[in-house]
């Protein structure tokens, strides 16, 4: 017999980067802290490494209100304006 497939195509299956950054030297890197324990400490260490080893210009850290909610729109807008690259926290 014929039956309907109950699923829907998953949106955004093919994603393209808007642009690539290449070299990190002189770039501004953003982090979105997901509020899981120790993420802030990890980012502090990464900021030092990114500056010393890769010559990034600066690191900007933003914190979400809690782990399961999206970052606020103004946080995303700020990061989009200021950063060349943004890294989001996920999991523990």
């Amino acid at each position, binding site marked *: *017999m*014929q*039956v*309907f*497939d*109950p*699923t*829907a*195509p*998953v*949106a*955004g299956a093919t994603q393209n980067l808007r642009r690539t950054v290449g070299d990190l030297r002189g770039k501004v890197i953003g982090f979105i802290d997901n*509020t*899981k*324990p120790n993420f802030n400490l990890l980012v502090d260490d990464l900021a030092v490494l990114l500056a010393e080893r890769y010559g990034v210009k600066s690191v900007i850290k933003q*914190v*979400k*209100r*809690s*782990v*399961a*909610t*999206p970052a606020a729109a103004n946080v995303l807008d700020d990061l989009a304006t200021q950063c060349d690259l943004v890294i989001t926290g996920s999991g523990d």
Partner: protein
Amino acid sequence: MNSSLTRAALVEAPDDLDELIEFFHARRWSDGLPIVPPTRERVARMLSGTTKKPDDVIAKIAPGFGEATVERIAINAVMAGCRVDYLPLLIAASQAMSDPQFNLQGIQATTNPVAVWLLVNGPIAEQLGVNGGMNCLGQGTVANATLGRALRLIMQNIGGALPGDMDRATHGQPGKFSFCCAENEAQSPWEALHIERGFTREQSTVTVIAAAGTHNLNTHADNADELIKVIADTMAFPASNDYWIGGEPWLVLGPQHAAILAAGGLGKFDVKRRLWEESKLSAGRLCAKELSRTQSARGAALGTITSETMLTVAQKAEDIGIVVAGGPGTHTVYVASFGDARAVTKVIGLV
């Protein structure tokens, strides 16, 4: 096979019912229970339950953001065993759960055991036979069983949240098979939920709620003060998302308990206010990591949080949800919430 992205595809499947059911299980198109085959005829009959067009896109369902067309909602409704006149409720529920304040992406992908609780108000509850009385959160009522099941299939098949894949639940909970009831408006001493939320008595609504589980409160307290105290004490436990986030917990008051509170002179908001005040939890009862997360989540509202801080279960008293449902007995159900979600109510269109 239809090539349009908004129209569902027909596929060849076994004629034998047992084999057909295994065909659905093998593709992970079911919830683990046998399904009703969504044939062209059955889906066409289900679609007669609305005047909306099959390719109308009602919502995009997180986390995969698949398009919930009327047709796909109807297909999953057929599979769950729904009757034709249930379709408008599922359309409204799909709209409701895709509202950003419900945070469906978080609900679908979390390790928490979050079920989407469908709460039905207004005349449609009686028309569809949605149970708000005895055993309303249990088995035995077609509408309660199949509406909640259909919503879960929509979340899984259209939203793409398969257990162990995008659905990261550590345990899940039985309510993820179905979690649906009506409010027992006839036996409530207060205005019904949909009226509290700005709708008229004649309107029919469905409210989606991010429910972390059900906890039985069996108490023979026979006056309002005692009853408030017992309920408030039970709400306050440290491993609760509601305290560290400032959540939206719910109480399903049994009609007997509601009558005791009303006889004590308490309106619904009085009950919320008393529970909010009396269920405060010392932050010192939280573990260190939870205290840190509480600071992140609630610091902006509460300032510096120490082990001396008394945390409220919700950011404000109004955020405690109260409905009256169930049958006779000395029981109330506490529904702790996911925390990072707010209930959404939508009108059920009758066409």
